[in-house]
């Protein structure tokens, strides 16, 4: 059957809707007004996923486990796995050359010390957006007895720093270091070079642009960079990554490409520093 060609009225409708769409896109790009809707939908999606899993897959799993003689072993295995992940986080806190390990009180009384971070579980990360696009975010669920304000708290995994929390609801949204809107104050080991490294929009890399006339220290490939502690969000002296490429943009600007130590895809357990 032949389709009729759109009438003038229908054409005007399309034009009107197109203009509205362009305006919506412009507003969304230039402001954060739709963020609440998006976060609400994400929370709904994640909750629905877990509720559905809870009422469909989990009963089947538990039924299967009930008939297995090794069910207790499975449970024990799961507990051990969780403990191993937590131990990895503790290792990061104590083994790296950062502010935590410099605090002798922690190291001397390691068993009794109550670590000042909350555990968080990964709830959602869009690997497509993470691998393709400029906007790198993930959703985590902070598991804490008391409900505290976690906004601007920094998030880490067993390999290092991941990002900071920028939005908190049932789930918290983490702005990853590689997001182009993220800025991380870093420094060299000698404390003679400071820079604000921006997210590159590429998986695992941040970019630090600086003026070589101002910062005279010579930066070489594979040089390790640390957090400078400026900005008040990330503690000082935590290893961030190493330089993989140095590009002289012009006589007044150089660009360092820094490969990050940690990737959010490495683990699904994170730590959120309390203070």
């Amino acid at each position, binding site marked *: 059957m032949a389709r009729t060609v*759109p009438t003038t009225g229908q054409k005007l409708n399309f034009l009107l809707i197109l203009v509205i769409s*362009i305006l919506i896109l412009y507003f969304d790009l230039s402001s954060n007004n739709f963020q609440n809707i*998006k976060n609400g939908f994400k929370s709904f999606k994640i909750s629905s996923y877990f509720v559905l899993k809870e009422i469909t897959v989990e009963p089947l799993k538990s039924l299967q486990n009930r008939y297995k003689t090794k069910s207790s072993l499975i449970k024990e295995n799961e507990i051990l796995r969780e403990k191993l992940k937590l131990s990895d986080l503790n290792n990061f806190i104590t083994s790296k050359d950062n502010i935590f390990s410099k605090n002798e009180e922690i190291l001397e009384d390691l068993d009794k010390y109550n670590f000042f971070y909350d555990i968080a579980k990964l709830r959602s990360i869009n690997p497509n957006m993470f691998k*393709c696009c400029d906007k790198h975010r993930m959703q985590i669920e902070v598991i804490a007895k008391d409900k505290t304000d976690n906004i601007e708290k920094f998030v880490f995994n067993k390999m290092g720093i991941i990002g900071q929390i920028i939005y908190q609801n049932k789930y918290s949204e983490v702005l990853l270091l590689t997001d182009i809107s993220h800025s991380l104050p870093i420094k060299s080991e000698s404390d003679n070079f400071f820079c604000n490294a921006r997210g590159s929009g590429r998986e695992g890399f941040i970019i630090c642009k600086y003026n070589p006339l101002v910062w005279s220290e010579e930066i070489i490939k594979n040089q390790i960079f640390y957090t400078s502690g400026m900005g008040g969000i990330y503690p000082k002296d935590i290893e961030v990554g190493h330089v993989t490429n140095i590009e002289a943009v012009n006589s007044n600007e150089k660009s360092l490409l820094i490969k990050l130590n940690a990737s959010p895809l490495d683990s699904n357990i994170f730590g959120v520093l309390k203070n």
Partner: protein
Amino acid sequence: MSFIKRLLFLSVINFIDQTMSNFLSEFFIIIPLTFLSYCFYVYRSDKNISALEAFLLGLFFDLISSSYFGLNTIFFCLVAYYLNSNANSFKLFSYLQVCIFFGLSASAYVGFTQLVLNLYNFSYLTLFLSSIVNIIFCFIIAFIAAYFPKSINMKL
């Protein structure tokens, strides 16, 4: 197909799309499966798709794909308008021409979305490879439809 069914269908296709693109991004390829499915739906529809329906479907797709609101809406409206206007002309075209048209539309979509979502790392390699793969993908779909007309009733 009712509107709710269309939304559900779009959600399922979007899920497949996201699963697939996770793998394909390693090879600098983007196949906008949801967009192509929508194009196909508009193309195959007996009636003209209204501007409001294109707008709502686009907005819903923006929401589920975590992209900026309005991004897919613009493309859905443009495609709906173009296909509505030229629905009868398309019947005169060969499979080859239709496949090339859809493949290039998908490439334009990839280019535009990359400009908005990934401006700092815009890659011509991705655009070029995606164009070729999208055209080939449309050919494959056309071949499947042509060779298995009874089992898969979606002849281009």
